């Protein structure tokens, strides 16, 4: 492993060179600069998952230990995926290289590296597709934009498909809807055929497979962590909430990303869920087996994603619940919205979700039987079922970061905003081109939130951070709300780097701070044990 590298100062990172290289992109070799790439996947994790070519290797080495004959493995893999995915075929064939996507990618904006333009990232794979799967590429070669597959190309793929966070922003602007996330997903599948994953994805995916969650928390650790949250809640509110685990016959199973179970500020969001559900008297259970909403398998291959996702329906069936509520997470919701029912449905053992508090029938989830906590909470607020005191959040000036997947792979834009507006008095939107369906990625999505690539993460998050800076300077925004566990893990570092003084919170944490619970003592602190406005000495 390479030595730890020093993170450049923000002033250096924001010096971005948009000049195109002197050499054509096919002649410009890929560079592996420490701080900008992730470690290679570990042997043990690939063994756990049964993925090809498990071995110890490092991207910094010349020899990546790829088995003989890997070229045909990749080419067969391309052929198979062309026959399985119309999206892949069409996206390979119809790009006109108009360049509309180019400056829409956060990694291109922040690196100026043309291979980070979505069009060129796709071209890295398209050039090989042309060479081996089209007549024009076979005969005209480079004139048609075709090139041979070789080790340099493979390394280039690995570099750039793990510099894409599958955020789909390019797809919004493409006149044909070409989605680089789809190309990256398939590119990563191909790389995994020869054992080229990154540690930060393969590790959590293996842990999730065996232990039920990315963090590898064993059952007693999950209950232990939640118990300590319960203690904190009691200290703050005087109320002892009483969550249950793996309980058969509960009405609802709750699944959230395991990032909410460990580390700040995720745990505060988790405390928020516990308080909200307790206050409602919800008949719900946690599961230690299906203890992960997120899915790092989705960043590996369709099959791995499906294998990890299996637990959610299987556990709901075993416990005999009626429906499922899912916590705040980004890619988790793309998977639940666009993949889960297709993989493991029909969920005919569940019932169409009905809020036991308001009676609202969630027709939009009548097949998957899984609803988002923000949909559930927005409904409660609309029906005035929560006693809220938004002044408890008066020390916060909040802005909302739409996570890529809930916005562009689902369209959940208004629900969290309705909630925030009900629980906070100071809410400010970031500029129009940086929110909702045009939101910018945190720079760490799709499994890239490792520590060894911190420089690249700070770059990738620059457009997001810059938009936060705008509202920070204009309105004094000091809190960045979101509905994503990766955001809660990644954005604090991003804010500390670009916008010191801006905190990060889940939406449900804001709800819980404003929530006046029945029989609670007078709160003097928020969930972070910080003095509430007007209640402490530090006002």
């Amino acid at each position, binding site marked *: 492993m390479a030595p730890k590298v020093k993170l450049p100062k923000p002033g250096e990172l924001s010096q971005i060179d948009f*000049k*195109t290289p002197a050499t054509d*992109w096919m002649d410009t070799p890929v560079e592996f600069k420490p701080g900008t790439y992730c470690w290679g996947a570990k042997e043990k994790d690939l063994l756990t998952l049964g993925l090809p070519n498990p071995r110890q290797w490092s991207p910094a080495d010349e020899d990546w230990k790829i088995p003989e004959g890997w070229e045909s493995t990749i080419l067969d893999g391309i052929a198979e995926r062309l026959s399985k*995915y*119309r999206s*892949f*075929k*069409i996206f390979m*064939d*119809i790009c006109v*290289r*108009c*360049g*509309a996507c*180019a*400056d829409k990618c956060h990694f291109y*904006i922040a690196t100026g590296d*043309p291979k980070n333009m979505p069009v*060129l990232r796709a071209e890295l794979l398209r050039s090989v597709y042309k060479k081996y799967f089209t007549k024009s590429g076979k005969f005209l070669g480079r*004139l*048609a*934009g075709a090139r041979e597959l070789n080790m340099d190309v493979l390394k280039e793929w690995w570099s750039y498909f793990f510099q894409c966070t599958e955020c*789909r922003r390019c797809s*919004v*602007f493409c*006149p044909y*809807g*070409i989605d680089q996330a789809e190309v990256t997903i398939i590119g990563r599948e191909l790389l995994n055929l020869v054992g080229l994953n990154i540690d930060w994805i393969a590790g959590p995916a293996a842990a999730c*497979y*065996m232990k039920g969650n990315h963090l590898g928390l*064993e059952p*007693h650790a999950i*209950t232990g962590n939640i118990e300590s949250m319960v203690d904190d809640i009691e200290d703050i509110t005087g109320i002892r909430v009483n969550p249950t685990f*793996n309980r058969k016959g509960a009405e609802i199973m709750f699944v959230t990303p395991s990032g909410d179970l460990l580390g700040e500020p995720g745990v505060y969001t988790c405390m928020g869920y516990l308080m909200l559900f307790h206050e409602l008297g919800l008949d719900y259970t946690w599961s*230690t087996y299906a203890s992960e909403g997120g899915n790092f398998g989705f960043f590996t291959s369709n099959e791995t994603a*499906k*294998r990890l996702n299996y*637990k959610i329906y*299987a556990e709901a069936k*075993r416990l005999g619940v009626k429906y499922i509520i899912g916590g705040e997470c980004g890619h988790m919701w793309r998977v639940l*919205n*666009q993949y889960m*029912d*297709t993989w493991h*449905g*029909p969920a005919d053992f569940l019932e169409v979700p009905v809020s036991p508090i308001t009676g609202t029938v969630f027709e*939009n*989830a009548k*097949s*998957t039987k899984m609803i988002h906590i923000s*949909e559930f909470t927005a*409904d409660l607020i609309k029906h005035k079922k929560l006693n809220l005191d938004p002044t408890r959040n008066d020390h916060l000036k909040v802005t909302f970061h739409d996570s890529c997947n809930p916005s562009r*792979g689902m*369209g959940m834009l208004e*629900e969290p905003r309705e909630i925030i507006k009900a629980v906070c008095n100071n809410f400010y939107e970031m*500029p129009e*081109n940086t929110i*909702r369906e*045009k939101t910018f990625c945190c720079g760490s999505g799709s499994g890239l939130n490792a520590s060894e690539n911190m420089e690249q993460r700070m770059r990738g998050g620059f457009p997001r951070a810059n938009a936060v800076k705008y509202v920070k*300077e204009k309105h004094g925004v000091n809190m960045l709300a979101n509905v994503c566990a990766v955001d809660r893990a990644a954005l604090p570092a991003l804010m500390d780097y670009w916008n010191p003084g801006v905190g990060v919170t889940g939406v449900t944490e804001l709800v819980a701070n404003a929530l006046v619970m029945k029989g609670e003592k007078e709160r003097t602190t928020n969930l972070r044990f910080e003095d509430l406005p007007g209640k402490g000495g530090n006002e």
Partner: protein
Amino acid sequence: MKVLYSFITVIVLIIVASIGASIANLHYVFGIIIPYLAFIMFVGGFIYRVVKWGRSPVPFRIPTTIGQQKSLPWIKQNKIENPSSAFGVIVRMAMEVFLFRSLFRNTKTELREGKNGPELSYGSAKWLWLGSLFFHWSFLIIIVRHLRFFLEPVPFLVQAFENVDGMLQIGLPAIYLTDVFILIAVTFLFFRRLVVPQVRYISLPADFFPLFMIMSIAGTGILMRYFFKVDLVAVKELAIGLATFQPVLPTDIGPMFFIHIFLVSILFAYFPMSKLMHMGGIFMSPTRNMMNNSRMVRHINPWNYDVEVHTYEHYEDEFRDKMKKAGLPVEKE
């Protein structure tokens, strides 16, 4: 270099066409055989490509949602950009195909040094949208106008298009607006590719070639209408002969015509094997032509196969003692 290759190719094609045009014996080849071959390659190739795309399934429902989803009754859904009905998809596709909706969103990212550090801004950038819209619509209208050569009597709609197109009535014969627009638009698209460094960097010879071809086709068309006039009655005789599969070769059509029809033939033959197939592909793009209703209706993946999973039983077997100690219920004691 990339520009040069394409340019030279088109020049060579024009020279070949000129030779064909200047040797009367070759007129049958250039006026009848090559157009037929091109037509077969175009139609056959187009169908082949579309069928080939269609043979691959759409395993997952993956629309790019560009607006509010359908969820709670009082939250206003964006029924077009996040459609949950077939009607919504049709409107979305129509806006994409006829108005280039997504390109209309285009912005230009700029980085500048503000007083408190770097500032990114995203300005409106509508030129590509405008240029493309003018280009494609002009192209379509020009093709419709050309139907007057193939049809007798000329249908009302074709005549109407032509009248509107020539409504400025400048010059004789009247100048068509679309001729002007397509030349301006295609020149814009060409210079954009050449001048904007990023676009130049991603461009391939295959991106310049169609532009040069279309420029040359429009150019020869205009030349023969206004400057090197050809015998229109003869052209129509030939066109109707082609359309009715009773080809006749009138004499003395004029050489410019043969250059024009040869370039058109090459472009049509080239079409299905090139990026120009975006014309067909847009209709089949899964991120645009699907409803976002995957939580309401189960989408079926025809190749969905069983995978190896880690079952609850495996899990409990591994952690039973720890679960019991933590007070968790277990299936087997």
